[in-house]
């Protein structure tokens, strides 16, 4: 239930943010509930100790009543200020931190005090009639999974993605002379073919050789036929075609054009 939303920065760079769906946000909210309930419980404990300490010293009545007043203030703070304070300063409440969510404006910027206050005061409306039903209905009706508070404050909850750096695809081992002899100079792949081959090459290591060949054969046949290139190993064919198509014409020579001085090729393994 997650979706992407595109945001353009002042540098005219387009980001894609992954929008957090109701499930993640619900988990974050439960964690937040635990956090502030625990804080309240600790406060109550401290007050009980204070009252026990004050017993019989003539101030026990004052301590009990003052504790009651402070407790009410604390209840108010957890209900109305907890989320505002966290989100205005760090952009995320502890629950969102644990789940890995962040609140940003619909323009992808961090939210300030006003937006944090608006989106969290509006919880009173989202929580109606009970258990955030209004909020969930509202989320279902908006493309950015915004509850009423998000709509009013122009915010959204995203899953900041820190994609791991992936190594560039390289042709290993480099092309052998007998392969270069028949590989066409100019190969053109359309977007889908390219994406499919790329995904295959990246996942190849995790597949068994039989399965890899089976998958490669499904697309290697038609492509090889179209460009007039044959190779006994379909996976190798895809790797060669991909490298030539993607890297031909780049300023530093693609591996399939690099001068080559390796021992003669091992006997080609027969996949079948």
């Amino acid at each position: 239930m997650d979706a992407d939303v595109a945001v353009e920065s002042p540098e005219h760079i387009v980001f894609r943010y992954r929008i957090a769906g109701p499930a993640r946000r619900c988990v974050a909210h439960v964690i937040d509930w635990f956090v502030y309930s625990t804080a309240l419980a600790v406060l109550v404990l401290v007050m009980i100790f204070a009252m026990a300490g004050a017993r019989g010293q003539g101030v026990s009545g004052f301590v009990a009543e003052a504790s009651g007043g402070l407790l009410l203030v604390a209840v108010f703070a957890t209900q109305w200020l907890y989320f505002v304070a966290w989100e205005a300063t760090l952009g995320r409440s502890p629950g969102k931190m644990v789940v890995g969510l962040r609140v940003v404006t619909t323009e992808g910027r961090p939210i300030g005090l006003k937006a944090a206050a608006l989106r969290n005061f509006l919880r009173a409306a989202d929580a109606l009639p009970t258990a955030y039903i209004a909020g969930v209905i509202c989320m279902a009706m908006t493309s950015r999974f915004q509850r009423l508070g998000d709509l009013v404050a122009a915010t959204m909850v995203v899953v900041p993605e820190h994609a791991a750096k992936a190594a560039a695809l390289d042709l290993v081992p480099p092309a052998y002379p007998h392969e270069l002899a028949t590989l066409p100079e100019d190969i053109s792949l359309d977007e889908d073919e390219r994406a499919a081959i790329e995904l295959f090459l990246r996942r190849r290591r995790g597949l068994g050789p039989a399965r890899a060949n089976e998958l490669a054969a499904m697309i290697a046949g038609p492509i090889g036929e179209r460009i007039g290139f044959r190779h006994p190993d379909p996976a190798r064919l895809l790797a060669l075609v991909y490298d030539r198509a993607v890297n031909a014409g780049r300023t530093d020579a693609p591996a399939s054009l690099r001068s080559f001085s390796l021992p003669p090729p091992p006997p080609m393994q027969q996949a079948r």
Partner: protein
Amino acid sequence: MSVASNVTEKAFVDRRTRDWEELDALTRKAHATRLRKLSSHEVARLPPLYRNVCADLAASQVARYSAPLVDYLRGLTASAHTLLYAPAGLSVRSTPQGMWRALRRGWFVSFPRAVRARWRSMTLAAGLFFIPLAIGAWLTLRDPAFAFRVTPEAMLRQLTEAYTHGFDAGRGAGESVMMAGFYINNNVGIALRCFALGVFGGLGSAFYLVQNGITIGATLGYVTSQGAGMNILTFIVGHSSLELGAIVLAGGSGLSLGWSVVSPGDRTRLASLQKRAREIIVIVFGAAAMLLMAAGIEGFWSASSAPRTVKFAVGTVLFVLVALYVTLAGRRSDDNGEGAR
């Protein structure tokens, strides 16, 4: 598919990876702690690194490098972007002096100006609150049993009992703290809810205003009908200008919020709602501040043993101050009326 002269993806990655890793490390550190905790050298490194990585992202998209690389650069720029484009105004990054200035400006300039800019909503809110209050009081004075329809009878009897005694005994310090805490929790909560429910076309705010008006009117009427009218008046005169005023302002903000959806003018309904919300949130902050003051007065002063005449004098002064504040404060300021954005 031949691409105009460009380096291979591998060469590109090899050449640029140092910048990427530096930016990655900096953004992770800043997100984990805070921007403030970075050294000045690290902060100074952020913008140039960010610009370079933005350029790398654009280049890798044009050169059609593989999806994982583009995704990686996107994630990197996005998290640096979140860091660099902070909102103006109050934020953790501003200095204490800056925050203090913003706070002072918000209270003395932006808040009263915003109230005057929305005077129609505020007047309507006052009507929706005080007319039911008057009706509730009048009905109850005619027939005290009416009060039991809007407020539990036991609570009313207890209240009357309390007010009949007068305030000669004053109120203990502990009880004062407890009541102040109760008023904060109860009244500020009511005000914020009254504002928030305005998002439903203003209906929620209108409901809360009318409901609170009738309840308060009936309570006043009932206590008066039981012969403790002067006492309850002495009690409420100190804080009522702040407390009831704040409820009206919060309700009026809710009405204004709702009206911005009903009648969006040239904007889309959503854009109109968002714009109005930004303009009006300062009134909600202000109303909450007024209620905090009211809670202090109500907890520590209103039930104190101070003479009735003093209480009335203080109440009158506060009423005049609130009225002057709402009508006059922030009129003569050098800045334009945009408020602390």
